[in-house]
């Protein structure tokens, strides 16, 4: 053994070192010029991985440098030449393979003559403080990510936008840094997890393209999140395509269910013992390992976030899963808020719709009241006119028939003829205004059509054989005033009968389709007959005479009041068809 301190005995040197460093909290060692340990305290022995100091004294530090790998061998000669060496937070393993983080300081050890006779080193085990520091940095990073994501979420209310921002935070390099992320939400009614959104490259090539693009732009996480639509473009199409078709039953054993039930994140690896369902999921995602964290808000399970490092193959650590879980917990609130926002929005839309319906109803009530008032008024006027007209015409008739008219016979005939024309107009007005007094109610339109048809046939002797009736087999319920609608049907039947020729046939039919109840009067028969009928309708609807005009105005207003429509169209058979449409009850806005 070389003489380190020539003037001091070995025992004295040992005693001196022991007195100074034996119980020190840091490791202390001294080697000779070859690296052979001359002295080390208990802490240094522990750090290097020796059971005792005596065991260590038989070794050169070059013997276990391979394990410790603190660069000591490389710098050894430099230190012997008089230079010092320091390395902090050096992560290594000792001879026994134990992980440690060390602060190492090496200096030349000088002998009595002033020459370097070896090296002296101090090593401080900072593993625990380093671990805490790393954790603190991680926590700080996550807090920063959460803070930035939260800030970005304040500008998003739609669920899809919220989900995209969350996954951008999970996958962005400035965020949690996973390669790919998937978000699935629980459909409580169907008891399944439904895929909602996925972000990440589908292949290494795609990853290279996306990540190069992002790296070149040097954007902060907040900038990236602010433009969450950007992340849609940066997401590989292959990973996001089909995500919405992804349905995972919650009643079958798989790691998604495990994560939801346990309430905490898990790492799933292909080498684990997995259920068939779980293996299928891994195969579907084409990944070996992934992290699954539940999204839970106030004990309510909302869904899961799945993340992996398929492209880089970077190992998913427990710490990363814990961070992802913290992130998921914060995301849960945003998802709940978004859902509430959507509910409020939906409710607002419903209220808007109800308000519109209310306004429509009010308009209808006002219209009905107006119709009622107009009906009463016209009824009074018409009734007051009807009797005098009848008396005037009646006496004129009496004078003509008595044979006393003499030279005035022509004038009396004019009085009679004009009186009868006026009576015809009043006849309609009176019938309609009388009908206005009936209240609105549910009406089976088939029954109404049948009543109108029977009445029409009983009163219209001429050409009635040309008419036929075919009723819909479906229910034809409408809402309205039965007397008014009966009046309308009779008016149209009478108008049609006016244009009938002997060759004509008119088929009256009812239908119910979608939201409409329809009555049609279709002309059939020879081509000539159909042409004549078309001309007749052109005349009536184009330039009606006084009585027809009144009929059309009254009938048209009545149909409009009932929310319906009428007109003439060409049927498949080529004949003109008069139609009346009314909203079917139960499917209309009523």
């Amino acid at each position, binding site marked *: 053994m070389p003489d380190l301190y020539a003037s001091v005995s070995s025992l004295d040197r040992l005693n001196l070192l022991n007195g100074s460093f034996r119980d020190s909290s840091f490791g202390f060692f001294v080697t000779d010029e070859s690296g052979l340990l001359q002295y080390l305290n208990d802490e240094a022995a522990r750090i290097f991985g020796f059971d005792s100091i005596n065991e260590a004294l038989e070794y050169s530090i070059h013997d276990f440098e391979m394990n410790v790998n603190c660069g000591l061998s490389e710098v050894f000669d430099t230190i012997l030449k008089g230079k010092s060496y320091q390395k902090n937070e050096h992560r290594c393993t000792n001879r026994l393979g134990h992980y440690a983080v060390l602060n190492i300081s090496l200096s030349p050890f000088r002998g009595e003559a002033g020459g370097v006779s070896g090296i002296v080193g101090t090593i401080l085990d900072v593993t625990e403080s380093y671990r805490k520091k790393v954790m603190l940095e991680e926590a700080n990073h996550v807090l920063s990510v959460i803070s930035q994501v939260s800030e970005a979420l304040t500008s998003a209310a739609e669920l899809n936008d919220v989900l995209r921002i969350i996954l951008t935070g999970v996958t962005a390099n400035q965020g949690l840094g996973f390669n790919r992320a998937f978000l699935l939400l629980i459909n409580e009614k169907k008891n399944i997890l439904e895929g909602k959104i996925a972000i990440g490259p589908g292949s290494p090539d795609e990853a290279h393209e996306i990540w190069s693009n992002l790296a070149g732009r040097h954007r902060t996480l907040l900038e990236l999140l602010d433009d969450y639509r950007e992340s849609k473009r940066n997401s590989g199409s292959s990973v996001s395509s089909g995500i919405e078709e992804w349905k995972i039953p919650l009643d079958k054993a798989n790691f998604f269910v495990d994560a939801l039930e346990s309430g905490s994140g898990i790492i799933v690896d292909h080498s684990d013992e997995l259920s068939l369902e779980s293996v299928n999921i891994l195969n579907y995602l084409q990944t070996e390992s992934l992290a699954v964290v539940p999204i839970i808000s106030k004990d309510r399970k909302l869904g899961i976030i799945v993340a992996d490092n398929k492209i880089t193959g970077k190992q998913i650590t427990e710490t990363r899963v814990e961070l992802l879980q913290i992130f998921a917990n914060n995301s849960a609130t945003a998802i709940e808020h978004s859902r509430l926002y959507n509910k409020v929005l939906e409710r607002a839309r419903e209220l808007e719709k109800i308000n519109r319906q209310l306004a429509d109803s009010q308009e209808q009530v006002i219209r009905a009241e107006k119709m009622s008032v107009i009906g009463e008024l016209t009824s009074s006027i018409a009734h007051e006119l009807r009797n005098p007209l009848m008396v005037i015409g009646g006496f004129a008739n*009496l004078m003509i028939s008595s044979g006393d008219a003499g030279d005035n016979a022509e004038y009396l005939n004019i009085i009679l003829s004009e009186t009868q024309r006026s009576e015809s107009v009043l006849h309609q007005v009176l019938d309609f205004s009388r009908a206005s007094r009936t209240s609105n109610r549910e009406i089976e339109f088939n029954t109404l059509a049948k009543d109108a048809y029977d009445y029409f046939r009983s009163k219209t002797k001429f050409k009635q054989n040309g008419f036929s009736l075919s009723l819909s087999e479906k229910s034809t319920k409408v809402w309205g005033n039965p007397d008014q609608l009966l009046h309308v049907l009779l008016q149209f039947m009478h108008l049609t009968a006016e244009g009938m020729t002997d060759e004509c046939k008119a088929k009256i039919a009812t239908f119910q389709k979608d939201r409409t109840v329809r009555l049609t009067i279709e002309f059939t028969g020879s081509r000539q007959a159909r042409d004549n009928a078309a001309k007749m309708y052109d005349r009536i609807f184009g330039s009606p005479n006084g009585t027809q005009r009144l009929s059309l105005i009254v009938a048209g207003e009545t149909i409009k009041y009932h929310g319906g429509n009428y007109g003439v169209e060409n049927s498949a058979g080529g004949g003109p068809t008069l139609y009346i449409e009314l909203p079917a009850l139960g499917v209309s806005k009523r």
Partner: protein
Amino acid sequence: MIKVLVIDDEVYVRRLYEDLLTGKGFEVTSTASPKEALDIIRKQKPDIIVLDIELDSDNGLKFIEKYKAECPDVPIILNSAYSIYMSDFKSWMAEAYIVKSSDIQPLVDKITELTGSKREYEQSRK
């Protein structure tokens, strides 16, 4: 002679019917009140009643039942400016329904038709 009771609140309508039907050989009594009509029915035993529906004091349809109870064999002709009452089931108790018109022939024809058997009986006695 066939006795006709006309119930109508319009004085000139009553006058028209009186002149017209008297000229056709009927004996006509008229009133504006359906209640007064009941007294006339009891006293004069009309062969036919011509009844307006919308009367000032009341609705003619309400009285059909009473008239029918008083003299079930006497036919009633409802005579209204409205045709819509035809669909009122109470109007079905009447033997006929004629809408008021300056063409009064349909009313005369209906009266003649409904009183035909009595007229024939009276003519046979002559």
